């Protein structure tokens, strides 16, 4: 009797231990199939002089040394990327939140508004860039045409090193429909009663936003925060097609630096070393955000301290 009982228990414990790994196994397998190999390969590559064709040569840490000590483009492009991120990340989140809050109200035709705000995210990269080129064009663009109607002489948006990065920030923000949707989904899972209760006790709208919406939305805010940082560092398509990194490298992003080293200069080893540095920078930033998150992210479904091993 007790033997069967114990054996059952052992089996049950074993199953319990195994279950979580079964659930995450698709990703684990995918990681081994499609990520780990390329990752190791690129790590090895970063210690080589590795032209796409021709002889490869092991050169130790030379790629890293050259990058950090001799290549001004490394630091320039890193700085451009950081500047971009400092604009893009907060605006992406704040404006995305603003749109989401607007759309979370009961408005007529909200489905249509949501679709409209998502529209730019549906347009593929090549076309989107063509559109922005037309908007920003110094001589022939719609933006300066409209400004001209108002009697304002518009700047050379993409041709002036002082404006180009900002222009790219704005163009990138056009795609915040995704962020908006993520936050909207989050808003939807906040209980209405919380707002009703707050309203009854005379809490003003802005305070409801700060004290109810933002804490309840914090898991999704964390998500957009981290993914925005990653997006900022991987920003490539728009700048590549719109400004090609110019004028005077004012929009020469780190991702473009990697891209050029790989596809213009055919230095795969050097590009791999670049990538690893970028990878480590993003990783460090994300870890900082994750670490800080325990202080500001509130999880409704968080497991009780110490946990609940069989849940």
């Amino acid at each position, binding site marked *: 009797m007790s033997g069967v009982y114990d054996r059952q228990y052992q089996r049950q414990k074993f199953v319990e*231990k195994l*279950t*979580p790994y079964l*659930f*995450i196994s*698709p*990703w684990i397998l*995918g*990681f081994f*199939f*499609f990520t780990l*190999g*390329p990752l190791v*390969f690129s790590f090895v590559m970063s210690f080589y002089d590795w032209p796409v064709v021709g002889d490869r040569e092991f050169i130790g840490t030379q790629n890293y040394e050259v990058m950090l000590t001799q290549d001004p483009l490394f630091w320039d492009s890193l700085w451009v990327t950081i500047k971009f991120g400092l604009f893009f990340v907060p605006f992406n989140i704040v404006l995305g939140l603003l*749109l989401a809050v*607007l*759309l979370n109200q009961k408005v007529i035709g*909200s*489905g249509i508004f*949501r*679709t409209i*705000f998502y*529209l*730019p995210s*549906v*347009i*593929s990269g*090549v*076309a989107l860039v063509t*559109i922005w080129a037309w*908007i920003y064009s110094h001589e022939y663009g719609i933006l300066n*045409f409209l400004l001209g109607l108002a009697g304002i002489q518009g700047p050379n948006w993409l041709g002036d090193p002082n404006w180009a990065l900002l222009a790219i920030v704005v163009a990138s923000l056009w795609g915040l429909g*995704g962020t908006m*949707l993520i936050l*909207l*989904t*989050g808003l*939807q*899972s*906040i*209980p209405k009663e919380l707002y009703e209760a707050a309203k009854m006790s005379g809490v003003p709208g802005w305070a409801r936003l700060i004290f109810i919406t933002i804490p309840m939305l914090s*898991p999704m805010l964390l*998500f957009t925060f981290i*993914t925005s940082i*990653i997006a900022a*560092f991987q920003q490539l398509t728009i700048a590549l097609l719109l400004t090609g990194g110019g004028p005077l490298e004012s929009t020469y992003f780190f991702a473009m630096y990697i*891209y050029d080293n790989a596809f213009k200069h055919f230095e795969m080893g050097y590009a791999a070393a670049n*990538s*690893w540095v*970028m*990878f480590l920078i993003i990783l460090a930033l*994300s*870890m900082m955000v994750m670490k800080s998150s325990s202080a500001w992210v509130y999880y*409704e*479904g968080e*497991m*009780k301290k110490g946990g*609940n091993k*069989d*849940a």
Partner: protein
Amino acid sequence: MLRAFTYGALIFLSAMFILPFYWTFITAVKSVSELYQYPPVFWPSDVQWENFITAWFKQPFDVYFKNSAIVVVMSTIGQLFSSSLVAYGFARFHFKGRDVIFIILLATMMIPWDVKMIPLYMEFNMLGWINTLKPLIVPAYFAEAFFVFLLRQYIMTVPIEIDEAARMDGANSWQIYWRIHLPLMMPALVLVGTFHFMNAWNDYLGPLIFLNDQSKYTLTLGLSMFKGLHETDITSIAAITVLLCIPPLILFFFAQRYIMDGAIGSSVKG
């Protein structure tokens, strides 16, 4: 007052978001002579609807459409299933190495495509997958970090007691995933579906690198082929862009109401 402000803001912002699309549309139907006019022409005097047909038949877009449809449908199914499964695993279990594995998962989002490209090509080449749609479909069955992270965040807003109640009711982990969390995740799943659909639909680099034969090409590759080394066929790009937007937009219009179905919102909490 607040109402008026809301509508005002929404309409103003909508105009800004619609403008580029509007321009793409009128570019598509402009005649060559009006294409480059300045001051800009806001409605062409001679609307050339046939530009859509012309552009479509400049390349075998019916073939591209079929390929894109296969890739998008097959990979979206895989992505929804695998990512939600993995997200549930991370959100609801304590297990050895969980936090480390989760950080590795996050880190995979940060690997630049440039360095993965050649090794991946070699791997798919060894598998004999080059010039097939498999490299664009199969990886979706192994969960993507972005979606796992998104769904995990969503699951974590669901009170743990729901799981416990189900457990008391006799549900095992699979049943809790399948019968409780999957339906509860619906808004987030629609989101993941939408995002993945758009990624797959607009993916350019993947098809470019892994497909060789034009009979295997997807829509975006076709679109990009209007942009040559020296000259760009703006009318065709605009026309195909407009056509390419239609399926995802229709789908999104119908899907977005599920995003607004805040089932968890008012029932459990509070």
